[in-house]
């Protein structure tokens, strides 16, 4: 009898130990009731695909989030809406305007990463006109001095950051070339008309000029593993509604885990991508994928590099380095990781 009681006691204690060890994460991740509304503004690019998958595959609902998504043309607009409290989370590129916003003390912070640049086979390349390459006039980045180089997005944009990183390889800066702000869709025609010398070009336009033979690759894998886009939360969302923010990041992490390997192009995911951005299934299948980190690591070193490049290009309204750690809240990703048992 005593032996049985001892066994029961041991069993109960084991159960309690198990609950103490494992269940807290499960409890934290319980869906919010009633569901909490979250307004998300995003620039429609594939680097925010975790949000598209979480939205389309019901992961937000699973955690009690009633998410409304709004596609916006420019990250600067989203920053304005975030600071006014009209948007809770923004999917934006970390560009000059973001750094200037932080330097002005605007209350917004990075809560989760967007996709990272792939370590190799990046869809974004520096391409150069074929005739200039074949004639030997431009064989390396250093030969681009004084040449017309197109980059989408203009001054202080992500395109300019990538161009600066490519030019660094030839010890050049954006001031050593004629930087032209041209949208990606216009660049193939400009190459065909020979009105450009080189360009930073993403998918599917890079493939278009390469297959047309009007340009060849000069440099690729410009920023391997770097995070240039992120999910940014408004001060109100992060400070007043942390339970909601945690579940939002948790949903993104769960979505990222549903996008690994062959699952990236599963039917459910393809439907999610096509619902949120203007592209085609073919372009998604042929384009090189970026990295959707299942652990949602936020790389501060990458952010430091982005900040330094924009500052050196003269695009920031300040001159001293700005530490991204001041405006990055890692607690949500840590909580999500713990809730996922990772």
């Amino acid at each position, binding site marked *: 009898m005593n032996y049985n009681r001892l066994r029961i006691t041991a069993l109960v204690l084991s159960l309690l130990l198990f609950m103490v060890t494992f269940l807290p994460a499960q409890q934290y991740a319980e869906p919010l009731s009633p569901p909490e509304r979250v307004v998300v503004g995003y620039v429609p690019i594939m680097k925010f695909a975790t949000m598209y998958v979480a939205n389309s595959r019901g992961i937000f609902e699973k955690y009690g989030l009633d998410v409304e998504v709004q596609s916006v043309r420019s990250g*600067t607009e989203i920053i304005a809406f975030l600071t006014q409290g009209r948007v809770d989370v923004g999917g934006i590129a970390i560009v000059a305007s973001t750094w200037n916003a932080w330097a002005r003390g605007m209350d917004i912070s990075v809560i989760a990463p967007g996709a990272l640049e792939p370590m190799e086979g990046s869809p974004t390349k520096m391409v150069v006109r074929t005739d200039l390459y074949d004639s030997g006039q431009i064989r390396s980045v250093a030969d681009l001095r004084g040449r017309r180089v197109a980059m989408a997005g203009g001054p202080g944009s992500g395109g300019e950051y990538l161009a600066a990183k490519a030019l660094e390889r030839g010890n050049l800066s954006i001031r050593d070339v004629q930087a032209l*702000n*041209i949208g990606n869709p*216009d660049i193939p025609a400009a190459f065909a*008309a020979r009105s450009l010398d080189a360009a930073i070009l993403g998918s599917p336009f890079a493939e278009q000029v390469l297959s047309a033979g009007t340009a060849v690759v000069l440099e690729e894998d410009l920023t391997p593993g770097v995070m240039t886009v992120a999910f940014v939360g408004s001060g109100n969302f992060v400070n007043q509604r942390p339970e909601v923010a945690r579940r939002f990041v948790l949903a993104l992490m769960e979505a990222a885990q549903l996008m690994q390997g062959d699952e990236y192009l599963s039917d459910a995911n393809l439907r999610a991508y096509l619902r949120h951005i203007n592209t085609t299934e073919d372009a998604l299948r042929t384009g090189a994928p970026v990295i959707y980190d299942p652990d949602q690591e936020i790389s501060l070193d990458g952010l430091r590099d982005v900040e330094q490049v924009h500052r050196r290009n*003269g695009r920031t*309204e300040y001159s001293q380095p700005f530490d991204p750690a001041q405006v990055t809240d890692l607690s949500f990703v840590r909580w999500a990781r713990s809730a996922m048992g990772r």
Partner: protein
Amino acid sequence: MSRTQNEDRHTAHKARLFRSLLVFAGLNLVVTLLGLWPALWWAMALGNFVLLVIMAEAAAPLVPGTRTHLYEQTLAVGFPVLLLLGWELLVAGGILSPDWFPPPTRIARALWELSTEQNPFTDTSLFGRPWLLPERVAADGAAGAAALAAESHLFATLMRVFLGFLIGTIPGLVLGVAMGLSRTIRTMIDATLSAFYVLPKIAIFPIMMLVFPNPFGEGPKIAVVAISAFFLVTINTMVGVRDIEPVLLEAGRNYGARGLRMFRHVVLPAALPVIFGGLRLALGTALIVIIAIEFVRSQTGVGFLTFYYWEILAPEKMYAGLVVVMMLGVGLTAGLTALERLVMPWRRDVKQKKGKR
């Protein structure tokens, strides 16, 4: 009107002014004391505007005749000053965000910086350094002047507007007169003209980029400005010529005017008021179009500068750019009005006579 009646009216205006002043002060005091400004600021701005109009209306009859002009000038200058003051107070009171609606004092400072500080990376500023012109021309001739002009965003915009306006206006005037005088030409071209007129001119910019050998040069920008001006000038000139009163033409014929003499002495002067109306519209449109193009497709110009500072999030400098655009609009319109007075001196005389009456 008797002296007593005059005094009665004077007293009534004074009382009306006093009453509206009292309502103005009382309303603002109550709303401030109750802390209702943040919730009611739109309604208060509108209410204060209406009260100001009532006060100004009441005060006008009290102003002596010799001071009427001064009073009107004070109203014209005072209203925008009050608007700016209101804006400044709304920001200071925390009702408008200083990040997105920077107060006028900060915008003025930003405008000063844009005007006086050279961007160290692009070697450009709003005005450039025109005072170096004699020195550069002496050293490098035209190339020196061109290099100096490239430093000025204002010059870039003005050059595009002037060239585009000129290139569009001259053929517009010729075609407009031809369409006004010839029924055949009008029948042939009118429908086509109407179809092209409604096209948003910014939408044809990509087509212009394909037409010019250097799609990123000045050609496509100036061409779009010229096309915008062309349609407006053509249509207005045609209307001006068609609407000439037959009695004027008849009078001209009676005096023996034919052909070019008829055109120079009757048709052109009679159509000029409508033509100038078209030129004013065309110049305004030229400015709007070039600023829109510079927003997205240029590395220089006031439009570029404005959008650039929005894109990198320096809102006070963006507002400063908008102020420059507004000043450009006022300046260009004033220039055209001066030209109008020069070309049509009889209109000034007519206006003066009407004013005296």
